[in-house]
């Protein structure tokens, strides 16, 4: 039992009191003056730096305990220190999306009277991976431990790892076949999993018996608990140095300072006003094995976002007009949406280190109830919520970037993150044992372009600013596949004055197994789920999968014949089809098929980012370098960018500047000749809208948005001068 709270109030009352004070004063915990900061700013800053050092050090230590290549290699982990009420004071680098989701988890326990049962005591360990309590998806398993000082609860230490196997209906963690909660895997719903700093044996047994690869999860638990204990002991030592009263005050002042700093940064970097953007997501599962017929197999989601920046510096993001939740794994909870906002803010506005939950408090999310952002049914699956989160927060990045451009801070403008599909697998390993895992090389996609330079090639994802694809040799140790190719995908960045970052494609030979289940998720088929900015184009859609069953690769290798190491640049016929015999397979969207075996070949492409600016302004010399190095094709250089290349004496491409100028002038004329006034286009398209002359999935998307949002209905009706409701939902009540 919590016997000696820091104040006379119990934790729940303290939390409610803190929320009331924020409501009444507009300041975190009612802190209207940063008294300690004003008294001794150097001591104040030094203490926060110490706390941040505790977090960074604890995470690095924990990564060396973990057995999972996701945590060890790619850094899929974050840790943080919290107030007694569960607000983040300081955090490490890593998957910072979870700093605020852990906050929700702690608050959830407090509000659900965990003080009484199961009780909160020194040495207790609590875990959670339920997104409706506070995480993003099932594989994001979080552990928190209370910090007591002489019997008083004075804070929490928390850690999250993304698990590579969660025991769902398909192996891995981003369980693509999950259509409702009950197929997502092993849930730990705000449970006490340990006491006296020791993880309970019965909990470990549950993990061992419900996961395909329990070593990852269980050793990650030990890594997380070790990091929490490390942070806890550091904080206790700090409190013994600075005194309990000072700690209780300064930890909260840090958060209020974080809130004020976020507002100040917004006023410094942006322009007030209303910003709008949208993205889409297409999901195609018709005819694929395993999907239950719970809803339409193919669907199209629209994700419109309106961002308002007020003159006091507050940022509000409104998702009104988006789609309802569905029987798929891509729903999200408010915790996940919070996390997406937080990790984006830490990258774009709060990169100075002094960042905590205060930044989140200076923002607001409007998540319409019943949509995928805030489901009105807690049975829905959220296993691949990143599929919609990433495109949505890519829009947020573009909206923020518009404000940076308007304010003159062009170096901060960034076209944004992309959704990069993921491979998961299970079955029989190369060692003859059962196994399961997610392959995290997806954590190194191409980024969107910047307003002053090209995007990052194979080096960025939105959820982890330390993006890393991991080491091929380490991945090969973990799965029954060996790499026969990993290369840049030409033209995978969106075209523009500055192109989006390119991504890569891997090709594997399945090896030493007779049963390998390969699944993929987070595919936006048939539509762009990213965008360009200021004239830049979106990056290509998610690419199709290519596999060869019963390939003759061993015979070819024995004869010394050429193989294929990448799909190539002909979208109609791949190099696999040209060079390798066997049964060729091309699959759009999620890859869900019968098991593979040794000798089969599988390839998977990741995504690049959107472009910035008019393509006809791209630097011809840089383009020649891009062609030489495989980032752009010669065909794209001429056809898309209007750049004429010739060969130097060694056969390398160089730009023909005069011919380029001439070609671009012609392309500009051609552009104008093809274009029509927007008013004419609207008049022409209006007839199509009136007849709802659209594909069934498009019509359904409009009907769903209209049903959920009066604003979307009004905006649509006003724009086309039609009655949207009568067109898309005939028979509905007016």
């Amino acid at each position, binding site marked *: 039992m919590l016997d000696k709270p820091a104040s006379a109030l119990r934790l729940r009352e303290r939390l409610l009191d803190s929320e009331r004070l924020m409501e009444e004063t507009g300041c975190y915990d009612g802190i209207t003056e940063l008294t300690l900061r004003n008294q001794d700013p150097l001591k104040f800053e030094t203490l926060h730096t110490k706390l941040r050092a505790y977090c960074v050090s604890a995470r690095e230590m924990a990564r060396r305990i973990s057995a999972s290549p996701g945590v060890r290699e790619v850094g899929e982990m974050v840790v943080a220190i919290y107030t007694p009420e569960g607000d983040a004071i300081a955090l490490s680098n890593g998957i910072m999306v979870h700093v605020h989701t852990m906050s929700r988890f702690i608050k959830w326990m407090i509000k659900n009277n965990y003080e009484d049962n199961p009780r909160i005591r020194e040495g207790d360990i609590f875990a959670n991976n339920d997104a409706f309590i506070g995480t993003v998806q099932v594989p994001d398993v979080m552990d928190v431990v209370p910090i007591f000082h002489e019997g008083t609860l004075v804070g929490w230490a928390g850690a999250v790892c993304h698990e590579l196997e969660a025991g769902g209906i398909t192996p891995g963690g981003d369980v693509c076949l999950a259509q409702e909660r009950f197929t997502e895997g092993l849930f730990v719903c705000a449970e006490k999993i340990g006491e006296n700093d020791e993880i309970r044996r019965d909990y470990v047994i549950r993990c061992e018996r419900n996961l395909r690869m329990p070593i990852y999860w269980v050793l990650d638990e030990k890594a997380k608990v070790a990091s929490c204990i490390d942070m806890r002991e550091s904080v206790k030592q700090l409190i013994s140095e600075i005194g309990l009263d000072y700690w209780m005050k300064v930890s909260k002042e840090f958060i209020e300072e974080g809130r004020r700093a976020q507002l100040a940064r917004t006023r410094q970097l942006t322009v*007030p006003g209303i910003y709008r953007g949208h993205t889409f997501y297409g999901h195609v599962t018709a005819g694929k094995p395993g999907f239950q017929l719970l809803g339409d197999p193919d669907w199209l989601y629209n994700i419109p976002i309106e961002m308002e920046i007020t003159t006091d510096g507050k940022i509000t993001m409104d998702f009104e007009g988006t789609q309802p939740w569905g029987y798929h794994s891509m729903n999200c909870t408010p915790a996940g949406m919070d996390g997406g906002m937080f990790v984006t803010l830490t990258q774009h506005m709060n990169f100075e280190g002094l960042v905590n939950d205060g930044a989140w408090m200076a923002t607001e999310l409007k998540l319409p109830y019943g949509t995928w952002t805030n489901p009105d049914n807690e049975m829905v699956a959220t296993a691949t919520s990143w599929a919609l989160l990433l495109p949505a927060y890519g829009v947020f990045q573009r909206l923020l970037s518009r404000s940076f451009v308007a*304010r*003159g801070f062009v170096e901060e403008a960034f076209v944004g993150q992309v959704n990069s599909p993921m491979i998961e697998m299970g079955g029989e390993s190369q060692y003859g044992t059962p196994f399961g895992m997610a392959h995290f090389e997806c954590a190194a996609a191409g980024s969107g372009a910047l307003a002053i330079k090209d995007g990052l090639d194979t080096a960025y994802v939105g959820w982890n600013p330390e993006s890393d694809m991991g080491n091929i040799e380490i991945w090969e140790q973990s799965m029954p596949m060996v790499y026969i190719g990993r290369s840049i995908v030409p033209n995978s960045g969106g075209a523009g004055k500055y192109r989006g970052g390119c991504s890569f494609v891997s090709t594997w030979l399945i090896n030493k197994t007779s049963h390998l289940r390969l699944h993929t998720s987070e595919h936006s088929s048939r539509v762009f789920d990213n965008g360009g900015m200021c004239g830049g184009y979106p990056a290509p859609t998610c690419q199709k999968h290519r596999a060869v069953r019963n390939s003759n690769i061993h015979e070819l290798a024995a004869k010394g014949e050429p193989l294929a190491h990448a799909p190539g640049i002909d979208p109609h016929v791949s190099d696999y089809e040209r060079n390798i015999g066997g049964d060729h397979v091309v699959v759009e969207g999620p890859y869900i098929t019968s098991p593979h075996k040794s000798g089969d070949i599988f390839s998977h492409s990741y995504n690049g980012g959107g472009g910035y600016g008019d393509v006809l302004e791209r630097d011809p010399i840089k383009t020649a370098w891009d062609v030489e190095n495989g980032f752009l094709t010669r065909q794209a250089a001429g056809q898309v960018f209007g750049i004429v290349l010739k060969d130097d004496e060694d056969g390398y491409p160089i730009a023909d500047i005069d011919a380029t100028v001439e070609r671009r002038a012609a392309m500009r004329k051609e552009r104008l000749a093809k274009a029509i006034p*927007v008013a004419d*286009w609207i008049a022409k398209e209006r007839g199509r809208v009136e007849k709802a002359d659209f594909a069934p*999935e498009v019509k359904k998307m409009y009907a769903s948005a209209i049903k959920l949002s009066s604003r979307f209905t009004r905006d649509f009706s006003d724009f086309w001068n039609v009655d949207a409701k009568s067109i898309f939902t005939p028979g509905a009540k007016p």
Partner: protein
Amino acid sequence: MTSYSKEVIRDLAAGQLPWPQTRRIMSAYKDDDRFFKMVAVYQDRVAWKDPILLPVSDHLFICQSGDERITRCECGHSFGDYRKNWKLNAAIHVRNTEEALREIYPNSDLPDPEWMEIREFICPECGTLHEVEAAAPGYPIVHDFEPDLEGFYREWLGKPLQET
């Protein structure tokens, strides 16, 4: 206070500043005089005399034109009152066939034109491609940005705009 010369800001905006220097600017505290310096850089770039009030895209600016505030292309073309969506006065080219999409994506899988089209918003005078929308057929054209121009100048810059 951090501050850079107009020449540095000009080169930064043009993407011509050496990367180490750009990186230092990105890592340093922000320069509070940036906005007006950047506006001056843009003003030098355009041939017209209307004072620029706010950049809104790579080659689009809100400027004071007599008693009006309009969105203007770098070439001088006016897209009308800045409070209205400039795209409605642009020229448009829509790519909604495989053939038209293939021109931009020659070596990749394509979106389904029944599900998604690309809309290119072009200056009818100089042919600059100002914005690209990727949207489902029938989706209303989005009004990207409605700045609170008066609030910005009054409360954040401390230099209220003259009433029009």
